[in-house]
């Protein structure tokens, strides 16, 4: 990798890509369908998180196979890798990490922009919707596959009038080499 280049750029350049508008509008179609099916925004938030989780547990393989990274030494590095390499590789945008707590177990992932929300405006009836909640599920699912149980939630959302997207990421537990098979169905 040439010096000065940001770590995610090379990865993003090397993977197959598609037009972001197709992605954005498809996501919009999914959210609309959920809103029609569930009516309650809280239920939609939950469903988006679940969909994200399903993606996350598969996406981590794709990430580890292509991202050309080494094992993260601590949770701080994990968070940096998510925003600098993970977001870049899949969504083409990078973010920053901020607001660490004193134990280094909780931080905020900040995104100025993300392709999910292009063309989007929340109507009055959907004010409680975390439109991009799928991202929380993705991060939670992906981290669970590398032995980290986390709690991930949106605390700021540009669509709700905030200045940035802020995702609060909290490490609950490091599960060493324990296979997280907990689907009981």
């Amino acid at each position, binding site marked *: 990798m040439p010096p000065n280049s940001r770590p995610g750029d090379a990865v*993003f350049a090397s*993977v*197959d*890509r*598609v*037009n*972001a*508008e*197709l*992605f954005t*509008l*498809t*996501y*919009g*179609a*999914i959210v*609309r*369908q*959920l809103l029609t*099916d569930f009516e309650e925004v809280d239920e939609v938030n939950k*469903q988006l998180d679940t*969909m994200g989780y*399903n*993606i996350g547990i*598969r*996406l981590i393989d*794709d990430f580890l196979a292509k991202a050309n990274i080494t094992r993260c030494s601590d949770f701080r590095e994990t968070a940096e890798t998510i925003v600098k390499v993970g977001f870049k*590789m*899949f*969504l*083409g945008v990078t973010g920053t990490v901020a607001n660490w707590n004193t134990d280094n177990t909780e931080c905020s992932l900040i995104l100025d*922009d993300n*392709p999910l929300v*292009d*063309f*989007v*405006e929340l109507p009055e009836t959907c004010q409680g919707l975390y439109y991009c909640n*799928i991202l929380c599920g993705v991060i939670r699912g992906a981290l669970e596959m590398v032995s980290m149980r986390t709690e991930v939630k949106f605390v700021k959302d*540009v*669509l709700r*009038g*905030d*200045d940035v997207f802020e995702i609060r990421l909290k490490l609950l537990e490091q599960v060493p080499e324990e296979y997280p098979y907990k689907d009981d169905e």
Partner: protein
Amino acid sequence: MIGVGRGPKQLLNVVDRPLGKGKNEVSLSAFAFLFSELVQYSQTRVDNIAELERRLEDAGIGVGLRILELLCHREKANRRETRLLGILSFVHSTVWRCLFGKVADSLEKGTEHEDEYMISERELLVNRFISVPKDMGAFNCGSFVAGIVKGILDGAGFPARVSAHFVSVEGQARPRTTILIKFAEEVLQREARLG
């Protein structure tokens, strides 16, 4: 009141923001994962294949209507096609290039029926990572793309029935996908009148 004066992007009303050039990209994996969730979720809400295809088509229609509006603004200087061949070639080239990065492999007129047209694609993007289980018969995730095409045609005033079909090709392991467009009678009558 929002949308007045100059301000950060998020304070502007969505229609006041500049329209992007449409050059941004995301990874194919991100799209494939998302699409797979759409299909899996839809599966939990239906009883049979026809309903599943209809749900995917419905999702596609929403995308198609928006793509039509977006591309008419951006690529066609706020005009849209009013003739049958014009709108078909718009779908086959402008829309396909925007969504899939290339024009469609072929656009043909049906030989048996005057009102049928077919757009074919050797490897439709949405089918790239999909293998259909044997017990699901002729199910084709291309229904989503058929929905996009239907959304565009309906939105432009060319109501049509649109469906996706696998067509096996000699010498190739995977079948190609053909999007079959059957225009409503009124569309053909109007065309005939316009001469």
